[in-house]
């Protein structure tokens, strides 16, 4: 039996295993009646969603990994395979990972975002970034200009097709067009990092892709906040409501500065903490990395900061200031990446509403054809196309 066939059989076996378990009669009580124990105390049994989460996690991990290996065997990108696998076993298709289980897997999203951002920050070398500063800025700006220039008029002209025909004023149409174009320029650092790791790409082209993505993510936060602040009153007028949340520009700048500055500060503190641990203790790194990623996610959430930016800054500082100390940490991050990516992308795939996709699929090629291209010119184009092929929209927690 060839290796590919074995992989296919194994992947099918994992799915069949879970199908068998799900369809087996009996098991945990689905509804939540009140039961009585031997002492006569009433109690409610654990909901089946939470009891089944561990099995769902196991299926996502093993199944997505096997599917990814299978895809790699036929030269398809693993990330796409994880997404497709997640969509196949999700509530929209086989329902092996149910909608009750998905909220319990939110932990993985938080972990993945922080881990990916930490990795992204760790990949960016300041020395190379300085050399490429001009290229990075040109590519990011150029891309944005092209996307806005093409997509905004297209959305406005085809507003009926996209369901915005009810908008009466030009300002509202323009804001919608700008917002959609802004979303279209967004590139998930998760996908870029995962694709670079999958292809084991290293070099100026990878640095450029990553730097453009990271820079644009920071710019996106600012632009998005500005657009939402502008859009709020316009839509309120459009819908005839009193404009809620109309703030002046001064407040907006202060709020943005707090958000960004706070995220940077959190990242710096996280970087310092990790360096201290690496110098003084340096044991059980996998658990410490997971702990640190959770800590960044929790604290950012509590203080209304951006976990992605904080983890990015932590990674940047660790790589560029404390490089020698941080080598074992990044090795550990690399080890943890595979299971985290498998589950993250598979869960993202499981969350895709296939009915909605069926309805909205015509819009996807339109936005993607104007979408992110971080290509340089000439010889880099070949590697660029391999990077682009792996990209797709995913990640519900993208800023």
């Amino acid at each position, binding site marked *: 039996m060839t290796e590919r066939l074995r992989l296919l059989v194994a992947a099918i076996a994992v799915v069949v295993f879970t199908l068998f*378990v799900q369809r087996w009669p009996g098991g945990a009580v689905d509804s939540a009646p009140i039961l009585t*124990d031997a002492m006569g105390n009433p109690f409610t049994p654990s909901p089946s969603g939470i009891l089944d989460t*561990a*099995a769902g996690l*196991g*299926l996502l991990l093993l199944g997505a990994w096997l599917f990814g290996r299978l895809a790699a065997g036929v030269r398809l990108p693993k990330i796409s395979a994880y997404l497709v696998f997640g969509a196949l076993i999700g509530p929209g298709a086989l329902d092996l990972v149910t909608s009750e289980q998905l909220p319990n897997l939110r932990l993985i999203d938080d972990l993945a975002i922080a881990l990916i951002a930490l990795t992204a920050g760790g990949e960016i070398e300041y020395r190379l970034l300085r050399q490429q500063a001009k290229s990075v800025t040109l590519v990011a700006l150029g891309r944005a200009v092209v996307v806005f220039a093409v997509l905004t008029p297209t959305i406005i002209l085809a507003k009926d097709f996209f369901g915005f025909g009810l908008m009466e004023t030009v300002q509202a149409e323009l804001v919608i067009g700008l917002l959609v174009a802004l979303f279209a320029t967004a590139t998930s650092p998760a996908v870029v990092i995962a694709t670079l790791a999958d292809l084991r790409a290293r070099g100026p082209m990878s640095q450029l892709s990553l730097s453009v993505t990271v820079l644009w993510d920071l710019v996106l936060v600012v632009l998005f906040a500005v657009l939402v602040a502008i859009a709020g009153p316009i839509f309120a007028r459009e819908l005839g409501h009193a404009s809620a949340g109309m703030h002046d520009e001064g407040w907006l700048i202060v709020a943005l500065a707090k958000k960004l500055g706070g995220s940077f500060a959190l990242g710096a503190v996280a970087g310092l903490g990790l360096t201290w641990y690496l110098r003084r203790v340096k044991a059980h790194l996998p*658990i410490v990395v997971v702990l640190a990623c959770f800590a960044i996610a*929790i604290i950012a959430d509590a203080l209304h900061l951006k976990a992605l930016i904080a983890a990015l800054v932590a990674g940047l500082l660790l790589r560029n200031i404390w490089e020698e100390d941080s080598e074992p940490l990044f090795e550990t991050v690399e080890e943890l990446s595979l299971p985290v990516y498998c589950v993250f992308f598979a869960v993202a795939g499981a969350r895709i509403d296939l009915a909605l996709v069926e309805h909205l699929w015509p819009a996807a090629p339109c936005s993607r054809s104007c979408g992110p291209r971080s290509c340089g010119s000439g010889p880099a184009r070949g590697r660029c196309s391999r990077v682009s092929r792996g990209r797709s929209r995913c990640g519900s927690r993208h800023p």
Partner: protein
Amino acid sequence: MKFFLAILLIVTIALLSVSARFFRFRRSRIVVALVSGGWLHVLVGVLIGPEVIGAVEEGALAKLTPLLVIGLGWIGMTIGLQARREVLRELPRSLFACAAVDVASSVVVFGLLSWLILGMWMPDAPVAARWPGAVLLTTASIGWLLETRSLRASSTPAAARLALCVRGSGALCAMAAVLGFGLLAHASSRGPDGALSFHWGDAVVMASVTALLAVMAGLIGRFALRLAGGDRSELLLVFLGLVALVAGSATSLGYSPMLASALAGAVMANLAGPALRRFERFILQAEYVVASLFSILAGMLLDVHIGLAGVGLAAALAGARLLVKAPVFAFSARRQWERGIPGPAPAPTLPESSPLFLAPIRQAPLAIALGVALVLSEASPMARKLLGVVVLTGVLTSAPMVIAAMRTGARTGRADDREPEPAQDASPGAESAPEGGADR
């Protein structure tokens, strides 16, 4: 937010407890006697749980269920992976004999005791309702704490052999406890009306399905391990995935996650090749961290309000361990050891007296895992009280051993592990038989 904080707190405490500094503390016999059973971590869990300080709320505990399932699966797989044919073949038969005697005596003594006292504690409960609790208390009494450092006064070969006997037969008892609990605890289950009753047919079906699940998982695991090769990230993924899949599937079906994982581990241990060795190392290196994490979770789950009846039950079980376990082990160890060694040379013997003979008095940490498994299968107040009883029994049995450890520490260097008189026709080198299962 509180849920995430709960995880952070638990993991931080677990990490501190396996740090180098803490390992240094464990070189002291008294400290190791105190902490080896996991009671310290359980106490921390009780303190930070909903019953005392409330740093971790009841709602957050429910969300930790998947973590508990994976923890039980991890423990089950750790135990199952030891059931490798070539290792078991090389063990002295005396270890198997000691384990068999302990299992039989525990089932008779503790089974009867648990049944009687549970009957007094829950007089109105039907037999089927008492059954899971009785099975838990009986299987929790099988085996003992495997730690021997606190009770080993001397480094003689005889003492080393006895320590090996304690650890080896204790490990075999742990396998029997997992098997027994997994097969028997689910013999009573809830019908459509929610009432507990015996379904022996279902129990047989359950055992068959669990075995089938385990074989399937073992085969998938073997293939996956071979595919992963030496890559640590892929090994981590395969391990987490397998444990979550097997334990999670068993839990979804209402079966025992520990039994399913243990059987899957046993299948893999006997089928997989060199890739398994790295896998095993990986699991064993995390043993302390996982045990610490798990004990803290157990402390948060248990109900401290067990009342006089619960305290009485725990005291009775601890007393029975004190009276029964040590003498039974000493008798069977000496008798079986003398019988079990083939060959012309005089058999290497055990010490005539040693504090190590008291080791079986202490309850095994596996008992906590079995208690948590019951709480997982039935999240009832009774199950949480029984977990509290199990933990209290462990604390009560550890207390006298701390005193024994103090006396052992005072005796160290005086060679009070009295060596037997040398046989007159002893051939050279008979007393220097190597350790580690070399009595074949």
